[in-house]
């Protein structure tokens, strides 16, 4: 007896979660198996669709920032995943995703990219941003105070403010560095800051809570600014409450500046997605890798995959499979000295035979390895070296796909969402087909 479902999604990043939600939305029974935490904890929590067009020249200079990412999609190379699924599917996928995010994210009202200040004081074009960053947009003319903390060296208020001004934002930015009440460790974890604020823990002898104490520390530094930005550590469980409390104490708007890894907005997005999966009835199993598959005869279908539990092999069978194991970071694509591989199904990953051609001489140039990944057909089924579909019932989504460079284009979440959505829809449709076929066969089979 194996564990059985209509659709099995492998990988629990933003692509896998979207694929599972999209398939469940179509009525399929879905299970998601994932090995480790996804790269969401490393990502900023911003939903980038397309910030820059990839360049044609080898020096990596790109065109952008783009105002309307959707309008730019037809200009992408034909092998780009957005071109594979088409701009309409990208829009549909995003509005599906907007439904999952509810009012936790902003940006759906317009096609234009929003400009969100980031931790180094640069401005990033992004399609959706968390509510906690809403008061911080660079297009907003209100003056801003940026607060950094001595114990959190990855965000320096004064430096970020100076960079923002140099970038030509339409307001005045000023920065200060304070000590965070209740934290003494130099390398305290971001979750530590968040926990103090979430639980409003007493941080002084007189029992003052962390929220009030933080506001009191900031208050004397306000010089008429109408908004205050903090690094993104303002709560994990209760970020809205924390921000509201700070706003009430300070009497101005409060926003978070998205941070690099590890990132609380990324963690919160992950929590939200997993809550949505639970609500949609998707069975999620994490902590265990899929290591192998078995196919039934030579009809080109995957019969079951094998999940490894410390040596015990647990079969999982489904009608349709979605591969969403990530790229080189997520371990969906791996490389050795000879070749680049997709480790579970050994799907074809095109790459130069000479590994010296896998990267560019220039560290910041256009590296071919950034685009490594499987090559799909129109239904996102990986194709082999001669262009044939590898398995009839396997689709791929997210960073395991080749043909794009999320870091250069700022397209990571967008591609994962668009391809996850499309892969999930196709998988559900096929499995419903299959069920219907079985049902009709039963009817016509003579007794």
């Amino acid at each position: 007896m194996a564990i059985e479902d209509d659709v099995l999604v492998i990988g629990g990043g933003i692509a896998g979660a979207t694929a599972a939600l999209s398939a469940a939305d179509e009525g399929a029974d879905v299970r998601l198996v994932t090995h480790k935490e996804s790269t969401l904890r490393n990502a900023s929590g911003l939903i980038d669709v397309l910030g820059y067009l990839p360049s044609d020249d080898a020096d990596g200079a790109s065109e952008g920032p783009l105002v309307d990412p959707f309008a730019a999609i037809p200009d992408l190379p034909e092998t780009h995943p957005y071109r594979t699924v088409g701009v309409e599917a990208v829009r549909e996928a995003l509005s599906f995703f907007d439904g999952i995010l509810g009012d936790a994210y902003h940006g759906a009202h317009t096609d234009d990219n929003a400009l969100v200040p980031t931790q180094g004081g640069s401005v990033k074009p992004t399609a959706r941003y968390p509510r906690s960053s809403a008061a911080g947009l660079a297009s907003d003319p209100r003056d801003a105070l940026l607060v950094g903390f001595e114990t959190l060296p990855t965000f320096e208020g004064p430096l970020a403010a100076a960079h923002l001004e140099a970038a030509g934002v339409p307001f005045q930015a000023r920065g200060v560095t304070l000590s965070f009440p209740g934290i003494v460790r130099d390398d305290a974890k971001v979750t530590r800051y968040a926990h103090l604020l979430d639980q409003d823990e007493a941080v002084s002898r007189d029992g003052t809570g962390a929220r009030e104490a933080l506001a009191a520390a900031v208050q004397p530094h306000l010089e008429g600014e109408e908004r205050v930005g903090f690094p993104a550590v303002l709560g994990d469980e209760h970020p809205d409450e924390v921000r509201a409390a700070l706003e009430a104490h300070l009497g101005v708007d409060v926003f978070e500046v998205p941070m690099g890894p590890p990132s609380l907005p990324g963690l919160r997005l992950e929590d939200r997605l997993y809550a949505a999966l639970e609500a949609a009835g998707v069975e999620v199993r994490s902590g265990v890798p899929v290591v192998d598959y078995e196919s039934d005869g030579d009809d080109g279908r995957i019969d079951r995959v094998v999940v490894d539990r410390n040596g015990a092999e647990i079969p999982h069978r489904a009608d349709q499979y979605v591969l969403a194991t990530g790229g080189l970071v997520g371990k969906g694509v791996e490389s050795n000295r000879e070749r680049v591989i997709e480790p579970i199904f050994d799907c074809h990953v095109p790459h130069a035979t000479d590994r010296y051609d896998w990267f560019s001489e220039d560290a910041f140039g256009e590296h071919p390895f950034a685009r490594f990944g499987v090559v799909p057909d129109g239904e996102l089924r990986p194709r082999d070296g001669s262009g044939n579909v590898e398995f009839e019932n396997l689709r791929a989504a997210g960073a395991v796909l080749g043909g794009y460079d999320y870091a250069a284009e700022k397209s990571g979440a967008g591609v994962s969402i668009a391809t996850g959505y499309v892969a999930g829809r196709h998988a559900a449709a096929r499995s419903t087909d299959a069920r219907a076929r079985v049902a009709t066969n039963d009817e016509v089979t003579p007794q």
Partner: protein
Amino acid sequence: MSDADRSIDDRGTDAGDKTELERAGDVETAGPGNDFDPVQVFPESEEMDLRPGADDCYKCSTCDTSCPVAEVDDEFPGPKFQGPEQWRLKRQEDHDIDETVMKCSNCMRCDGACPSDVPLSQMHNTARGEYVQKEMSKLSVEYWRNRTLANYRRLAPLAATFPRTSNFVMGLGPVRWLGEKLFGVTSEREFPEFATETFRAWWAKRGGTETSRRRAKAARAERGEEGSEKRIAYFHGCYANYNTPEVAKALVRVYEHFGYEVMVPEQRCSGTPMFANGMLEDARRAAETNVDELATAIEEGADVVASCSSCSMSLRQEYPELFDLEGVDDVAANTWDAVEYLQVHEDLTGELEETSVEGVAGMEDFAYHAPCHARNQGLAGQTREVLEPIDGVEVHDVGDSCSGISGTYGWKEEHYDTSMKIGEEMFEHMEAADAEAGLTECPTCSMQMGHGTGYEITHTLEVLEAALVGDGSDGGGARPDR
């Protein structure tokens, strides 16, 4: 922003040798391809060779975001430091193991976080072992307190011989107060009650494997599975034996219901509390017995099942990581969580679809907490899924927070507050859930859940028993004993 970071891994053979690829991207080597071999820590090898593991760390700090201790304790530097960084530091002659490693609760959450497969908990376990061996005074109260807690199993038989007296004495306020003052065991907690009859005593009285074989055979006949042989070896661990034999009995009845002959091999503590206290020598001795006995049972055609998630974790992951024993991989590969085993080998859902626990007291609505050690084995959602078809029971998952007790951790006076701070989120979620009773598979999580909310806590196997075999108070389940 940092999303410009483009990490790439290389499944090269030589971890120390940087490839051109890496130089181009200036990233460190990572990847399971540098096949990371379990190392022998005791007794021969003095040096732990965790180099490949340490080299795999690319310092993304993802592990730090999943550490429940770092979240509430400002003094704890987190898994990245305790693991790969401390390992590197320690290579320099004058660097001792940092004492903060004793603050790690061994919840093993960091293992599940690391995208680069760095063996964090193995690093922590070995570092803790070395710290206790080299730096902790064998005359200190702390050492003996830890050793006692870790070897609870040794005291348990005594207490179990006089359960009523023990329960009475342990419950006395002054005794608990003295425990804290002299021994550093928190007076905040109620000692777990000892059962008046241990599971093994019940098992022997019931006729041991003989009886089980007979009952299993009868069940197979009834199920139309004649001719097949189904056999499991039950690793009950200490807690189910001494404190909650009802869980162990539930397992026996449920398995016999499916036609499994149950064996109960000789066994010692799984070692979980010993790993957490750096008592690796003690753990190794226990492991030797366990691996020996279980390997024999496997040879006799049994698969091993455990009802406690920390026990199965220990047999599956920690043993092969820490001890180079004959048969250790075999035991790991053939050990299962008790419910998982049924889910894979039987049509559990089909069987449960017709069942009901309607009207069984205390079995309506549960606030379910998945123990960290179940989570790490990929079992987080299992209980909710499995119990779903049973009529009359509702399982509300209270989310992914850690309960905070982590075995002996929350018993120590110095960790009690940390333990309760970690647990706070779970308590809040339990209280917010539509249930007045708790459900989990880990004995110490269950203590913490009860302690923080005052709820009664049940084990998944008990619910399965109620659904499949009814009330088994006759010692043999609802089926007539043939």
